């Protein structure tokens, strides 16, 4: 009688992602949604107990530290082998003995989306978001694992492990950027509207925004900065006291099927973690979505946003900078 409790990003609870699971378990899934995996963590920390959740890779360490997770037995994951090794081999994912903390499912790129008509021949660099020419007409993503990471890259600091002095440098970089920005936001609806209207000329976005605006005929380009795009990956974690472990495995298996990944690519323009899904999507379509046919190659050139050792301090620092400190 118990249904699987699934805690995920809004929009990732769609039934099309797990058709086979639903066929086997007509009761379906009970999904709760979040809009930000920091908020999700807060809610879980306060005692919310789903069976599986869908945070991103960089948060796994924090969830784990809090003792919220149980390792996943990869033997029970049927398509484990079709997952690209880049994802499987991510550090911090291992729990030993073939157990892992998270099963990667979706990934995407973060970069600057800019208006080609309003920004003429920019240098392919994250520095565009620091360009005083465009003061007041740029926006960036309000998340620790995006903007501060870029600032660290530009400041020549390792984003994922830094000394306090280095963090000061990052803060300096961020402070430099604040007056130039129209907004810090995660609200892509507003960002896309603003890019379309010309209010913004450049903004940090996910690749799906690029596809969407191009489809509407807005002259935009998704930059390939020389410092590297950011890549994020998210996946499924199993909560320690999960009541429906069997259902959870069924669910993850269903999500790793080719159909599911293909639907993810086609509907949202984000990457799937399985090679079988990529194989099922025609090459032209992938091109249009600015996705490579072989992510393994591409992901070597991007910066993978993994767990940051000083995440909480960085977050505080970023908040303060945003507030004007």
């Amino acid at each position: 009688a118990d249904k699987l409790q699934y805690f995920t990003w809004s929009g990732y609870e769609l039934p099309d992602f797990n058709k086979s699971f639903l066929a086997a378990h007509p009761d379906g899934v009970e999904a709760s949604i979040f809009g930000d995996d920091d908020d999700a963590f807060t809610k879980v920390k306060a005692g919310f107990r789903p069976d599986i959740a869908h945070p991103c890779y960089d948060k796994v360490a924090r969830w784990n530290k809090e003792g919220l997770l149980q390792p996943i037995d990869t033997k029970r994951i049927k398509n484990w082998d079709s997952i690209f090794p880049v994802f499987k081999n991510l550090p911090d994912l291992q729990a030993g003995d073939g157990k892992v903390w998270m099963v990667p499912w979706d990934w995407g790129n973060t970069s600057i989306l800019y208006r080609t008509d309003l920004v003429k021949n920019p240098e392919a660099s994250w520095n565009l978001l620091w360009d005083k020419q465009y003061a007041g007409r740029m926006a960036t993503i309000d998340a620790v694992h995006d903007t501060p990471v870029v600032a660290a890259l530009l400041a020549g600091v390792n984003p994922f492990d830094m000394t306090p002095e280095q963090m000061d440098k990052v803060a300096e970089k961020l402070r430099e950027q604040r007056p130039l920005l129209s907004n810090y936001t995660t609200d892509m609806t507003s960002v896309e509207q603003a890019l379309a209207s010309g209010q913004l000329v450049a903004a940090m976005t996910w690749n799906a925004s690029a596809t969407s605006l191009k489809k509407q005929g807005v002259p935009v380009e998704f930059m390939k900065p020389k410092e590297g795009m950011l890549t994020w990956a998210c996946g499924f974690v199993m909560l320690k006291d999960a009541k429906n472990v069997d259902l959870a495995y069924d669910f993850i298996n269903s999500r790793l099927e080719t159909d599911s990944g293909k639907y993810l690519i086609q509907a949202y323009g984000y990457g799937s973690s399985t090679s079988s899904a990529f194989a099922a999507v025609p090459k032209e379509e992938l091109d249009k979505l600015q996705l490579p046919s072989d992510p393994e190659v591409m992901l070597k050139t991007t910066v993978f946003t993994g767990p940051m050792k000083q995440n909480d301090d960085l977050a505080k620092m970023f908040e303060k900078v945003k507030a004007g400190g």
Partner: protein
Amino acid sequence: MSAARSEANAGGSWLGLYVLAYLVFLYLPILLIPLFSFNDSIQAAFPLQGFTLQWYATLYGNPALSSALANSLVIAAIAASGATLCGITVSYMDLYGRSPLAATISAIARLPILIPGVIVGISLLILVNLVGFGPSRLAIVLGHILVALPTTVVVMRSRFAAIPKTIREAALDLGASDWTTFRRVMLPLSLPAVLSAFMLAFLTSFDEFIVVFFLAGTEPTLPLYIWSQLRFPRSLPTVMALGTAILVVSFVIAGLAEILRHRGLGASRRTAAVNPA
């Protein structure tokens, strides 16, 4: 026409213009929502692209939406009933209970207006987890009772205070017990306030989403649904269509409430007329 009145009208016409401008300010943004809900573009910007009903079509028969809507209505109805019940009893006992406990409860009940929503959400989440039922509709209901309580207490308190104290004493004097007095005299007399307290609490719950985020289990409420949809640029026009539908429904509900309130005003005016203070 009286001199006072003709003078009033001279100043009144300027004021009238101002009020008109103010109404434009109030309604201009609101009326954009229906406008763009018929616009054939996912960009909410001028110039308009063409008339379409497709967003309403997407709206229609969207199970996630209708369940969120149903959820919101049920939660709002229950939370509003709970908050109104508490508002009635708390303010009644504050005014007539003559005990320090009742006065304390009434004072505390008006505090939540000071507590930031995040904190209400988190602490109630901790509480419901301790108690054992976890995030759920029940948890949201509790959260919304807490959020709406100050309003219902203030509304009910001022209404009870406006009933002449001799009315209650007359009932007691005629042999009605405390309970009968409350049920047959005080409650019917404050019915208009009960209704407006209920309406206000209902709307507070229907519009709230910060507390909901923490307390929602697997069934989102409508504001949570709207908020999650607003993250997807493609959903924007559909959300506008949804907003328009809500607008129309609230218009109808507000109209009904207004009619009730008018009756209520009439009733309280009658009370005042019958019992000169």
